[in-house]
């Protein structure tokens, strides 16, 4: 398989975690943000939505983070609190139905220095640094993605 401009690390639909029950959304949100900070990612939020509804609030939070590993490779990780439904305050946090999706990918040549010479870009990715991509970058981002997955599951009290 040839290496292009980006390489997805997650399964095609991302790592999906579904959970129904008591969720401490505040601490989960803080823990994910801290994880990004601890791992030197630049963090930003693509979306932060809260809808106030009689049956409980609906939350959508799309967290994004990127880290420039070197001048050529950047790691992008996204965590979507993709609709947490029927959020109601209870004793230990909130109750609700959550669907959380984790995605990770590598971006090559993020400064677009090779944009004008795609042939050389192809050669560089697929011959010169291909081994490094699979033995160095890939395991690194894969482990980080799984580490984040563990953290979220731990916060939700799920089996890891």
């Amino acid at each position, binding site marked *: 398989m040839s290496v292009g401009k980006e390489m997805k690390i997650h399964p095609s639909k991302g790592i999906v975690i579904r959970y129904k029950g008591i969720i401490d*959304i*505040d601490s989960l*949100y803080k823990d994910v943000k801290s994880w990004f900070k601890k791992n030197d990612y*630049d*963090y*930003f*939020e*693509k*979306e*932060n*939505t*809260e*809808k*106030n*509804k009689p049956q409980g609030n609906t939350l*959508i*939070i799309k967290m994004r983070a990127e880290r420039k590993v070197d001048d050529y490779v950047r790691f992008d990780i996204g965590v979507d609190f993709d609709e947490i439904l029927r959020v109601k305050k209870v004793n230990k946090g909130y109750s609700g139905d959550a669907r959380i999706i984790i995605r990770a990918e590598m971006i090559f040549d993020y400064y677009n220095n090779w944009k004008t010479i795609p042939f050389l870009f192809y050669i560089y990715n697929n011959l010169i640094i291909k081994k490094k991509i699979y033995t160095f970058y890939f395991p690194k981002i894969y482990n980080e993605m799984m580490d984040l997955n563990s953290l979220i599951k731990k916060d939700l009290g799920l089996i890891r």
Partner: protein
Amino acid sequence: MKIEILKLQKIKWEGITDFPELYKYMKLHLEDIGYADERNLETRYIERAKPEGKKQLEISWHAVKKKSDFFVFNIDTNFLILGMSDTELQEEGIKRKMQKGVFEVRVSSYIKSTDKWDELKGLQKMYERMIMKKRIDELIKELYEKSTAYFSYIKTFLGLRD
């Protein structure tokens, strides 16, 4: 040259808030950090009357700060308020007029080069680009911090997680 930092990041709140207060505080925040003044911020303000006394608002702001002869910081804010109506809320025994509706705010930030930068030629351009590379990284960091702080400020006002 345009370097994008935040790309149409969205904050959405469906419920009750004090919208005039939010509007005022956001404006003051941009003024405080030196990105805007009373006259040059708002580029669009559309208010449409809807049935049942509701309103739809579309507001755009373009805030700028000149960083050097070569670069300008930009923060764009777009409001889209749907189905807004006045409502009264009792807060600590005091009646307070608030607004109910769907409040959406989108924030973008980017660094733009000036004509002076774009007009550099030959060796001078190469030299400037080489010595400016580190400086550009610092500018990116600075605008990232300013614009994410502004984004957090809006979230905190609306009572969203930050």
